[in-house]
């Protein structure tokens, strides 16, 4: 058989949709566990947990490989999906004057392409809002904890503000701003001796908190868009999860009911958990 069949045959295209789709489902779980760091702990502890997690995600080689597989999966799933949809439209040049598809199929199953397109738009804006800023453009402020060292009024010493930088060694490092320089955005070097003193964490926790806060004038808009997108994702998964198994030929009366149940539970719980997090941030 020709090699191109692996990409071109109708069934092979569906295998790719199923495989990339299921991989992206596992990605959702990983992403959700990360997001939960935003709300499981509060205050400095929560900020530290999330920023350390974000640093780990950006520096672990396995995570880096996985993230590239994720980018490729998203692109492949979308491009393949558009191609399939285009072919499917072509397969029926003339539509029915009167059609009653509600009698034989579920709503999400018939609108996978539209639901998927909305999810894609969400992913693009989501990456522009967070991924692009964190990785490429903006200088994200480092994780700094301000403390006030009490002075001695008897001796005429006022209270002194100090900035403690959280470093990757796990310690807070006091820094005199005029004695250090920052390299590669996060590395802290002694100005005089050009010695690396430590590496700070990008304070992505604060970026997220500000993004979805009431102080952000567009915070509510972002919040609504996020929650609606998660609703759309839920519908997409409602059909997609179990559908992927069917496409891969995994079907048996013993385990298909379990797959269907897990698929629907996944479709409800995962987007719900995602959506609750920015709502909690906004409501603080």
């Amino acid at each position, binding site marked *: 058989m020709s090699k191109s069949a692996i990409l071109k045959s*109708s069934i*092979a295209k*569906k295998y790719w949709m199923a495989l990339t789709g299921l991989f992206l489902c596992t990605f959702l779980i990983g992403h959700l566990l990360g997001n939960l760091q935003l709300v499981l702990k509060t205050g400095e502890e929560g900020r530290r947990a999330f920023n350390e997690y974000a640093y780990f995600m950006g520096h672990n080689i396995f995570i880096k490989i996985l993230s590239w597989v994720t980018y490729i999966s998203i692109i492949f799933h979308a491009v393949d999906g558009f191609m399939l949809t285009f072919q499917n439209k072509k397969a*029926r040049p003339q539509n029915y004057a009167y059609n009653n598809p509600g009698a034989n199929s579920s709503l999400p*199953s018939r609108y996978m392409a539209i639901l998927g397109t909305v999810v894609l738009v969400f992913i693009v804006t989501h990456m522009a809002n967070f991924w692009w800023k964190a990785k490429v453009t903006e200088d994200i402020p480092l994780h700094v904890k301000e403390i006030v060292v009490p002075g001695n009024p008897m001796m005429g010493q006022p209270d002194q503000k100090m900035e403690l930088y959280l470093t990757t060694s796990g310690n807070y490092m006091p820094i005199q701003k005029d004695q250090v320089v920052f390299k590669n955005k996060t590395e802290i070097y002694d100005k005089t001796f050009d010695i690396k003193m430590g590496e700070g964490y990008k304070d992505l926790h604060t970026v997220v908190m500000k993004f979805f806060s009431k102080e952000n004038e567009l915070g509510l808009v972002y919040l609504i868009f996020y929650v609606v997108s998660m609703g759309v994702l839920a519908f997409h998964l409602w059909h997609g999860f179990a559908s992927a198994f069917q*496409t891969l*030929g995994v079907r048996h009366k013993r385990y298909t009911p379990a797959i269907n149940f897990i698929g629907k539970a996944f479709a409800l719980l995962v987007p719900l958990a995602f959506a609750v997090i920015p709502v909690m941030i906004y409501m603080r």
Partner: protein
Amino acid sequence: MASKTININLKIWRQKNANAKGSMETYKLDNVSTDSSFLEMLDQLNEQLVNERKEPIAFDHDCREGICGMCSLYINGEAHGPDRAVTTCQLHMRKFKDGETIYVEPWRAKAFPVIKDLVVDRSSFDRIQQAGGFVSVNTSGNTIDANAIPIGKADADKAFEAATCIGCGACVASCKNASAMLFVSAKVSQMALLPQGKVEAKQRVLNMVKQMDEEGFGNCTNTGACAVECPKEISLENIARMNREYLKAMVTAE
């Protein structure tokens, strides 16, 4: 029991020939017995049209007992009408209300071009069947009785269920993608499940799917509409089996 009659309005697709531009035409038909089948109702309408010296409506039919797979028709937005597990010839007019407007259209698919009115060309199914829907038999004079090979009950039943497909095309008509996966999977399954079908198993599924794609059918998105509308209740299990067979063949065929 006295037969009840109803009066109905019909909106029917009329198209002079394959190249003509068709349109939905409205007809009124009175005194339709609720005991008559949908095709008998169309016969009655055609009689009325002939008496009015108008061209009768062309539609496919043959055995009129649900076994030949000739009748089609997309009735009120569903293949073979609103009833389940029946062909159009087995659909009775008691399923419709007095005064109801009934839409009748041909199967819509690029691979099923309209020949005239409600008649479509389903020879694309024949070509898929020719591409692999057969088994090799020994013709040297000592042909073995098929029943001489023991076959497990579960496999025999599933193969038989798949073989009940009459190739009417309701799956294609119902599918939002005009996909022929249910038909092809039934034809692949009925042989893949049996020892007689093992010889050509790999080439069969590859060739039939290739032909299916070349005919211009759409891709399966697992909506399940086909299995719901199928007059023979062919299961989606067959599509999953074909997907398995195809994967196996794709990675191992020479």
